[in-house]
C-alpha cells in the first residue's frame, strides 16, 4: 500500500522531500584549510562510525592523507569555533584515525594516460608529489626530477621519524610510482631549457626552501657548528653524528624544536634552545614547544646569539639579552640590551633560524624577497612560458599542506595551459562568519578535547619511535561528536510560508531564532547548532536544514527498511528509527542492532530528533505492525533531543488510539542508565508486539 498521488501535480519542493539543494555555508575549518578539505563532513562521518566513507571524503580532497594525518600543521584547528565553548576539535588526530581505521594503505589509485604532453616536475617534496598525483589523474605522463637519492623533500630529509614514520612516506611514493609517475632521483636539474629540449611541454618548479640562513656572527664556520637542515638530513638518512653532551640550538621555530628533540634522542645530555622571542611569542607551535620541554629541552627565551667561541671546535656561544623582536609595525627588527649577556658552553651548536630557496641561476626565473620565485597567484605561472612554480620555493618555508595545495593547483593550471583553456576561478560559496553568542555557548554541552595517547617522555628520548598513537574507536567517536556542525543549521527556506508563529523561537534549545527589527523571524546561521528540532516542529514546514541529507535520509532509509522487510517476509514487521550516532558511532544503542538480527528493521537516522511525527505515522501506514524510536538520551551531543522524541511519540500514540491501533505498538527508547536496560526494554517490547500479532491472527482465523 503505497501512496500514489491521484493527480500528476508537479512536485512542490518542500521541506522534507529531499529535493533540496545543499545550502550549507563553508565552515571556518574548511575555509582555513589550504586543501579546502570537507572537514565538517568527515568528522561527522567518524562520529557516525562510517569510517570508510569518512576516508573517501578525505581522499577526495587530499592526495596524501596519511602524511597530513601525522604532520599537518592543522590551520583548521586554529579556526575551529568549538574553541569558543571549550577547545578546538582535534581534527588532525581524527584524520589519523580515519586513515588508519579506514585502511588508507590499501586504497588503490588508478590513472590512465590520455594526453601526450609530458610534464616535468623539479623537486620531489610534497608540492611536487601532489602535482604529479593530480597530473596523472588528469591523464598526463609525468616525470619527477629529484636532486637527492631519496624522494619526499623536507618530509624525508627534514621531518624527524618520530613525527612521520618513513613507512608512511614510502607507501605514498610507492602509490605514485604505481600510478605511473616516473621518478628520477640523483638528478639535479640545472637548466629548464634542457627539459624543454627533452620534449617536456610544461615544467613545475618546486625546489623548496632548503638553504639554511646564516647567523652572521663570528665563529659560525667553526667545526661543531651545523645548520639544522644539514643535521636533520644526516640523521634522517641513518647517520648518527656525535654531538657531545651539550648542544645549543639557535632558533625558536618548529625546525629548532625538531633539531633539539633529535639531539636528545642521539644521546646528548643537555640541550638548550636559544631564541629571541619570549616563550609565548615563539614561532614554533605550542604543541611542538611543549613536547620539547616535556622531553627535557631547556628553553632560553629572549636571548640573541653573539660570538661563537672555540679555537679548533666550538666550545660555546655568547648570548645577548633581546629586548624586543618586532618593531611598532610588527616587522622583524630585534633590539638588544648589549650590557646583559650570558654564555652557554656546548659541544655542538645547531642553527635553525630559517631557510631560503636556492633556485639555480640558469633557470632564469624572476625571484623576489628572500630569493623566492615570483608567480602569478592564480595560475602559479612564472615569467617563463610553460614554467610554473609552487611550494616553499615560492612562499618561503611554509607547511606541507600548503605545498600539497599548491601542487594540486599547479596540476590544474598546467592542464588549462596545455589544453589552451582559461582558468576557471573556483567559487567556494558563502562562508559561515561570526562568533557564538554567550547565550548560545551557555547551552552547549561541555566535552573537553580528547588528545590521542602519546609515548611517555622518558621512552621518547630512547629513540625515534612515533610519539603519538592513534585514537581508539571510542575516543575518536567522542571527539568527533564535539563538532558543532557550523554552517549546516536551520534556515527559513520558504519565507513565503512562514506565518511568524514563533514556534521556532519557543522550541529551540539554544535560543537561536529571533525577531528582527521588522518583525521577521531570523535564524542566525552562526548560532544554530543544527539539532533540527525546529525543522520538525514548524507548523508551516517552512524551515529546513541547510544540509538536506540529514532529512532526506529518513524517508529513504524507511523505504530501504521496508523493501528489505518485504523480501524477508518476517512477521510481525517491526520498524525501529534508530540514531545512527548511537548505533554505529558510540555503539551505545548496540542492543537495538542485536534485536535487528531477530527481525526488527532498522531505519538509521541522524539523531532521533530528526524523526518527525509524520515519519512515525508513515511507518505504520506502509505496513509497520509496531514502530519504535531509539535515541541516545543523555549521551546525545545536542540538547533536549530526547524530550522532543518523547513529545512526538506521545502525540502519535494518541492519534493511533483514535484510529484503533494499540498505542503500545509505538514506543520511544531513550538511553538512560546504560545500554543493558535498553536491550531488556526492547526485548519486552518485541515480545509484546509478537503477542499482539499472534492474537490478531487468531482472531482473524476465528472470524473466518
Amino acid at each position, binding site marked *: 500500500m503505497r501512496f500514489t498521488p491521484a493527480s500528476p*501535480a508537479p512536485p512542490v519542493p518542500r521541506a522534507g522531500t529531499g529535493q533540496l539543494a545543499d545550502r550549507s555555508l563553508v565552515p571556518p575549518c574548511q575555509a582555513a584549510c589550504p586543501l579546502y578539505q570537507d572537514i565538517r563532513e568527515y568528522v561527522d562521518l567518524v562520529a557516525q562510525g562510517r569510517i570508510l566513507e569518512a576516508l573517501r571524503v578525505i581522499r577526495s580532497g587530499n592526495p596524501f592523507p596519511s602524511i597530513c594525518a601525522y604532520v599537518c600543521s592543522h590551520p583548521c584547528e586554529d579556526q575551529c569555533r568549538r574553541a569558543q565553548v571549550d577547545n578546538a576539535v582535534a581534527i588532525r588526530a581524527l584524520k589519523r584515525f580515519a586513515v588508519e581505521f579506514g585502511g588508507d594503505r590499501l586504497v588503490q589509485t588508478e590513472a590512465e594516460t590520455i594526453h601526450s604532453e609530458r610534464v616535468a616536475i623539479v623537486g620531489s617534496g610534497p608540492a611536487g608529489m601532489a602535482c604529479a598525483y593530480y597530473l596523472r589523474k588528469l591523464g598526463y605522463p609525468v616525470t619527477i626530477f629529484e636532486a637527492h637519492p631519496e624522494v619526499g623533500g623536507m618530509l624525508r630529509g627534514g621531518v624527524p621519524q618520530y613525527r612521520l614514520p618513513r613507512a608512511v612516506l614510502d607507501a605514498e611514493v610507492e602509490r605514485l610510482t604505481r600510478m605511473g609517475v616516473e621518478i628520477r632521483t640523483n638528478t639535479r636539474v640545472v637548466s629548464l631549457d634542457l627539459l624543454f629540449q627533452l620534449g617536456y611541454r610544461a615544467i613545475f618548479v618546486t625546489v623548496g626552501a632548503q638553504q639554511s640562513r646564516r647567523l652572521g656572527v663570528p665563529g659560525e664556520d667553526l667545526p661543531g657548528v651545523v645548520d639544522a637542515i644539514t643535521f636533520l638530513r644526516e640523521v634522517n638518512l641513518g647517520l648518527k653524528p656525535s654531538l657531545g653532551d651539550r648542544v645549543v640550538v639557535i632558533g625558536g621555530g618548529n625546525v629548532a624544536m625538531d633539531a633539539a628533540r633529535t639531539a636528545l634522542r642521539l644521546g646528548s645530555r643537555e640541550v638548550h634552545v636559544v631564541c629571541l622571542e619570549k616563550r609565548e611569542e615563539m614561532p614554533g607551535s605550542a604543541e611542538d614547544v611543549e613536547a620539547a620541554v616535556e622531553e627535557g629541552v631547556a628553553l632560553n627565551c629572549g636571548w640573541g646569539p653573539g660570538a661563537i667561541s672555540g679555537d679548533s671546535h666550538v666550545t660555546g656561544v655568547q648570548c645577548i639579552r633581546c629586548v624586543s623582536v618586532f618593531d611598532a609595525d610588527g616587522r622583524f627588527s630585534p633590539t638588544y640590551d648589549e650590557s646583559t649577556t650570558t654564555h652557554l658552553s656546548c659541544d655542538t651548536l645547531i642553527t635553525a633560524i630559517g631557510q631560503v630557496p636556492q633556485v639555480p641561476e640558469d633557470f632564469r626565473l624572476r625571484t623576489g624577497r628572500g630569493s623566492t620565485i615570483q608567480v602569478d597567484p592564480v595560475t602559479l605561472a612564472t615569467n617563463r612560458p610553460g614554467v610554473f612554480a609552487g611550494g616553499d620555493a615560492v612562499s618561503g618555508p611554509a607547511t606541507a599542506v600548503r605545498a600539497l595545495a599548491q601542487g594540486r593547483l599547479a596540476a590544474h593550471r598546467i592542464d588549462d595551459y596545455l589544453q589552451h583553456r582559461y582558468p576557471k576561478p573556483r567559487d567556494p560559496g558563502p562562508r559561515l562568519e561570526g562568533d557564538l553568542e554567550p547565550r548560545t555557548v551557555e547551552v552547549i554541552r561541555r566535552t573537553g578535547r580528547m588528545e590521542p595517547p602519546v609515548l611517555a617522555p622518558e621512552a621518547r628520548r630512547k629513540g625515534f619511535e612515533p610519539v603519538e598513537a592513534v585514537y581508539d574507536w571510542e575516543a575518536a567517536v567522542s571527539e568527533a561528536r564535539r563538532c558543532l556542525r557550523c554552517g549546516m543549521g536551520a534556515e527559513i527556506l520558504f519565507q513565503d510560508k512562514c506565518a511568524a*508563529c514563533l514556534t521556532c523561537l519557543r522550541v529551540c534549545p539554544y535560543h537561536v531564532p529571533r525577531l528582527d527589527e521588522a518583525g521577521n523571524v531570523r535564524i542566525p546561521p552562526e548560532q544554530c547548532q543544527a539539532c533540527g528540532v525546529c525543522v520538525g516542529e514548524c507548523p508551516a514546514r517552512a524551515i529546513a536544514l541547510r544540509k538536506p541529507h540529514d532529512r532526506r535520509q529518513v524517508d529513504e532509509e524507511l523505504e530501504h527498511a521496508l523493501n528489505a522487510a518485504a523480501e524477508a517476509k518476517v512477521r510481525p514487521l517491526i520498524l525501529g528509527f534508530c540514531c545512527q550516532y548511537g548505533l554505529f558511532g558510540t555503539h551505545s544503542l548496540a542492543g537495538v542492532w542485536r534485536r535487528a538480527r531477530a527481525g526488527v528493521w532498522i531505519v538509521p537516522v541522524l539523531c532521533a530528533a530528526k524523526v518527525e511525527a*509524520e515519519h512515525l*505515522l508513515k511507518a505504520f501506514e506502509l505496513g509497520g505492525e509496531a514502530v519504535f524510536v531509539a535515541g541516545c538520551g543523555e549521551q546525545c551531543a545536542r540538547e533536549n533531543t530526547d524530550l522532543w522524541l518523547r513529545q512526538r511519540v506521545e502525540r502519535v500514540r494518541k492519534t493511533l488510539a*483514535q*484510529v484503533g491501533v494499540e498505542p503500545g505498538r509505538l514506543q520511544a527508547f531513550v538511553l538512560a542508565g546504560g545500554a543493558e536496560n535498553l536491550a531488556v526494554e526492547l526485548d519486552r517490547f518485541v515480545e509484546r508486539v509478537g503477542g499482539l500479532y499472534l492474537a490478531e491472527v487468531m482472531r482473524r482465523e476465528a472470524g473466518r
Partner: protein
Amino acid sequence: MIIAEQKPLDEMARMLAPYSRVLIVGCGTCMTVCGAGGEREVSYLHHALRVARARAGGEPRIFLEHTLKRQCDLEFLDLLKDRVAEVDAVLSLGCGVGVQAIAEHFPDLPVLPGVNTSFVGMADEWGVWDERCAACGDCRLADTGGICPITRCTKGMLNGPCAGTKNGKCEASPEMDCGWVLIYRRLETLNQLEKMRRYYPPRNFRTIPRPRRITSRAGGPGETDGPQPA
C-alpha cells in the same frame, strides 16, 4: 488570533465515510500559528487518515493536500479550482470562516470542517493557548485596565469580583486566576482604582443583530460616493 483545535480523528473518519476522493486544505494564517491546520497538520492528518483506512480495511481512499495562505478570502480559493475538480469533498483545516468561504465559493462541493474553531486568543507558551477576547463588539478594556472581564472572568461579569473569589483564584477552579482580581491589581498599579467603584449597566447581547457587518469604506455598499472595487 483565531484559535482552533483539530477534531477527533474518528469524527473526521465518520464525516469522510461517503467520499472516496478528498482534498485536505490547510490554512497558512491563524490555523498555522495555532498549530491546528497548517501544512504540517495537513500532512499529519493525511498520514493518520491513511493509517485509519488501512486499519479499517476497505478501498483505499485518495487524499490530496494543499495549504492556502488564507482560506477566508475568495481570491485565494480560486487557487483550488483545478484541485477541487478532482475530488468529491473538501476537508478544511481552516477556521469556521474558511469552511464557509469554501462552501460559498464552490456551491456543488461538500466541505467538511476538520477543526473546532474555539476562540480568539494567544499563546501562553509553546502549544498552549488562552482565550482573550469574546469579539463582543463593544470593547470596555479602557475601564478594566486592559483585561477583558468577559473572557477572563468565568462568569463574564461586568461588575466583579463576585463572592466566589478566593486568594486570587476563581471558585470554579482553584487553578484559574480570578479575572476581577487581575483587573483590580492592574488598576492599582495604574493608579486608577477609582474605576473599580463605577457601575457598568448590564449588556443585552441579544440585541446584537446577526450576522454582523462592518463597513470601513466611506459610503455603504451600493452607495456611489465611496471608491468602488473594479
